[in-house]
């Protein structure tokens, strides 16, 4: 359960980025969260409000876009989306795939701010 540390990192980064843009208030934070990021969406959402307390993000919303896992299949020479985290095999040909293309994201994509 490290989602509170992650929520605090999100708030710190968002506050820093908002300040750089001369913003007084952050209304919403848009986050991309990969299924292999090691961070649980529900836990993160439940910590977020606490992390925002007494910061410029107080009252803001956390909007999470989940990113499914995608691996590169060396046999098909193509990216393949994988429904669960195991096994990491190509859904088309069954070849084990170790190269993760997408799904590790923990990225602050955008902020909704007031000037």
């Amino acid at each position, binding site marked *: 359960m490290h989602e509170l540390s992650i929520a605090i990192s999100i708030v710190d980064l968002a506050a820093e980025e908002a300040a750089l843009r001369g913003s007084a208030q952050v209304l919403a934070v848009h986050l991309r969260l990969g299924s292999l990021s*090691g961070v649980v969406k529900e836990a993160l959402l439940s910590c977020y409000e606490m992390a925002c307390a007494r910061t410029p993000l107080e009252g803001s919303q956390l909007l999470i876009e989940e990113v499914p896992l995608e691996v590169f299949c060396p046999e098909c020479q193509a990216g393949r989306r994988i429904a669960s985290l195991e096994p990491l095999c190509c859904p088309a040909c069954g070849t084990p795939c170790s190269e993760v293309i997408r799904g590790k994201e923990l990225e602050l994509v955008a*902020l*909704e701010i007031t*000037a």
Partner: protein
Amino acid sequence: MSAEPRLVEVRKNVLKQNDIVARALRDGFRKNGVFVVSLVSSPGTGKTTFLEKMLTSLRPRAKVAALVGDLATENDAARLARSLAPVKQITTGTICHLEAAMIQNALRGWDVGPLDFLFIENVGNLVCPSSYDLGEDLRLVLLSVTEGEDKPLKYPTIFNSADVAVITKLDLAEAVEFDAAAADKNIRAVRPGMPVLSLSAKTGQGMAEFLEFLETRPRNREAVALSPGSR
């Protein structure tokens, strides 16, 4: 001046700060030729026993040191100090994982330059440590024979973030009817191609092979091999 809300693009990794510190650590380690190995596992897998044996075996022929993370107590550092290698405990309080900044702080005042190997024992936890780069060259994930062969399937994220799997407590394998083939299959299901080494730190079985594996790892690699994505 308008108070209309506007959307601004940021596109930054939330753990940017950790990654920056980890990168600085890694650069420093590489410049000095220090090979850094981290250990992750659930509590009770035998990280400390394994590490103590590694330090003791390596010490006559290499300069080694260790950092060890726990929520509380200096017990592990005291145990590891028996190897006569320099050891420092990182007590994390209530934090369930190590972060790059904790490594940086722990190393303050330490001259890592002369080291050949630095070991970092993470807090016993198969969930949270997966998200944090510590600047290591090699991340070992340990799985003891008493834990059940399906652990990799239950905790795919941490197994996927590691470079090598180490099966520990091999001396108990028969007693607990450990199915090595199933464990191997499960590890490779979540991390295709990952090297798997089995050993018993207690009896020494497999230790020589592991140390040989460790000592023949290429140093000063350009990128962390086998480890796609953020690590």
